[in-house]
């Protein structure tokens, strides 16, 4: 389980360029599924035939992650870049990145403190003022290593630390991918359509297309969601807390959870004595928004593993939350009657 998370989080897969992580998922999903395929958007769909009803349950996790795209190469060999997905520009300075298929190392640079005007020191440096330094000294040299449109990821390795804590990039949503791969090991009454979606971080694009051609009878989304259980955040804005179990969403900006499924999820947790929390804030959005509104509508629910510092190179989660989210999903699917 830990090895799987490590492999998945360290793989590259910025929105629109999910090849590397897709290959890993395909390799792992194939032996567990009756059929796997990649649709025209690039979503991986693994089908596990059910034992009965013939109803379709779509379980989705997005395999893309936030990152960067190279938008310019300067005469001095420095790279201009733009974020892909929502990234707080304050986390960028001095971070290491890996660019393109050959993983060319680079660092995100800005003017050193000595050269900044007093006024500049007190304001956030804009992403557009930053550049990626790959150690090249001319445009020609840089162009041999990097092409316009190349993607870059945070250079950040998987680490277990403290009490069952994990630090990695892209926990949002490789935790979901990893959990779904586990779910594929079981067989259910309904047909399970395990979807590893693309381009969630740029607007839930993959999930909409996948849901349209799968035409599911029910949707379950497994996510990594924001946890703000950190100093200086008032209690009512913490959203989720590490170590308190999977977060069940009643609403976010993309969807309102189906009432029956919400109750069923809470009941499943309580009956099986699995710790859980409600996502105590309305924020963000995920694939549930698109699945729910696909065609004539699909009852949909989302559960999430709480992660601190998401969309940064160092997301932090609790392994117990991960295990409990998997357990909750397993119990939910086992007891689930898809209509």
């Amino acid at each position, binding site marked *: 389980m830990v090895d799987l998370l490590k492999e998945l989080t360290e793989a590259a897969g910025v929105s629109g360029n999910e090849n590397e992580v897709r290959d890993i998922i395909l390799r792992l999903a194939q032996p567990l599924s009756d059929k796997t395929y990649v649709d025209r958007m690039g979503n991986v769909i693994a089908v596990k035939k059910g034992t009965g009803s013939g109803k379709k349950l779509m379980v989705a996790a997005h395999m893309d992650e936030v990152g960067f795209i190279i938008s310019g190469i300067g005469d001095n060999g420095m790279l201009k870049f733009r974020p892909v997905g929502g990234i707080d520009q304050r986390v960028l300075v001095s971070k290491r990145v890996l660019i393109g298929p050959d993983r060319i190392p680079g660092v995100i640079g800005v003017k050193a403190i000595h050269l900044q005007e007093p006024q500049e020191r007190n304001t956030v440096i804009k992403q557009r003022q930053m550049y990626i330094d790959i150690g090249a000294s001319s445009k020609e040299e840089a162009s041999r290593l990097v092409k316009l449109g190349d993607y870059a990821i945070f250079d950040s390795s998987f680490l277990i630390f403290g009490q069952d804590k994990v630090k990695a990039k892209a926990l949002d949503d490789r935790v979901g991918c990893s959990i779904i791969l586990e779910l594929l090991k079981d067989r259910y009454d309904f047909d399970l359509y395990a979807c590893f979606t693309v381009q969630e971080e740029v607007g839930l694009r993959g999930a909409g297309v996948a849901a349209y051609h799968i035409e599911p009878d029910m949707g379950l989304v497994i996510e990594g969601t924001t946890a703000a259980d950190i100093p200086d955040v008032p209690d*009512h804005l913490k959203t989720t807390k590490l170590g308190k179990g999977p977060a069940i969403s009643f*609403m976010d900006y993309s969807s309102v959870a189906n009432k029956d499924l919400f109750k069923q999820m809470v009941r499943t947790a309580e009956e099986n004595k699995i710790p859980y929390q409600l996502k105590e804030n*309305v924020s963000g959005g995920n694939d549930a928004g698109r699945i729910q*509104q696909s065609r*004539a509508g*699909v009852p949909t629910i989302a559960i999430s593993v709480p992660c601190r510092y998401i969309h940064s190179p160092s997301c932090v989660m609790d392994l117990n939350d991960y295990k409990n989210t998997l357990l909750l999903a397993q119990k939910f699917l086992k007891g689930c009657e898809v209509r």
Partner: protein
Amino acid sequence: MKDLLGLLTATYGPSGNEDPIRELIENEIKDYVDELSTDALGNLIAVKKGNGTGKKVMIAAHMDQIGLIVTGIDDKGFLRFSNIGGVSVLNIINRRVKFKDGTCGVVSYESEIDDIKKLTLQKMYIDIGAKNKEEAAERVEIGDVAVYDAPMFASGDRLSACAMDNRVGCVVAIEALKRVKESDHDLYFVFTVQEELGLRGARTSAYGIMPDIGIALDVTLTGDTPNARRMAIKLGQGPAIKVKDSSVISHPMVKNLMIKRAKEANIPYQLEVLEAGGTDSGAIHLTASGVPSGVISVPCRYVHSGQEMIDLRDMMQATDLLVAILNKDL
């Protein structure tokens, strides 16, 4: 119509929690329709069959209303909340709100705020009179939604209540559904969910129905109050035929037909260009390979506040116009 509107505006039904309002509408119309169903998102779909020679028409009125969703309960029993739909800070200060089970509360804000312009929902709370967290948790759960508690009053033809947006449209649909008797067309009256969260119910119901023509019924803003933002819509001047809002440009065929039918029947009307805001036609007209769509709006002051004001005559004439449209060729 007035009494029905009073009943509908007082009935609970925020986006995502439309059960009570759906049940009420269902009971109101069930004896007048050929088919009645609720789809996966909760849209109520009532079908009145035509004679087989007409078109498939979707008439959509959203039945959801804006609200406040509880996100947490603090140690002293105060409820923190987020918005369901377009909730403005100024409209909710010290307002009375109610939950589905009738639990009432007052919305207020942290008193350290010195500049009201800086007030955000995150600094506000609902006080349900609970003495501590345990007591509050007995009455309200996280995820519960409160709506304005503001019964309707009448002053001449002017009516004021919360949730005129869009129980007015629901009443127009209900009345038209009862009155239309000779239509050639298959009429799909849809009471949609989650309009206030982005036209979500209309999107899925239109896909399920695949109509030939779409007509949404909703309220629109006015420009007839002191120093109002300029808008050529007034209360009491008749229903508004929408030309455009941020979600849709009405299909000329539908818009012109609405104008023609209004003229034929001597129904006063206004033309509406709404600069900000959208309605169900925004989702309907983009369904599958496209659906020519228009909107009949009832002018309404103070939209999304605890007291939204309309003119009864506008609502009645909106119904007359809709009936005139549905009874003839499309």
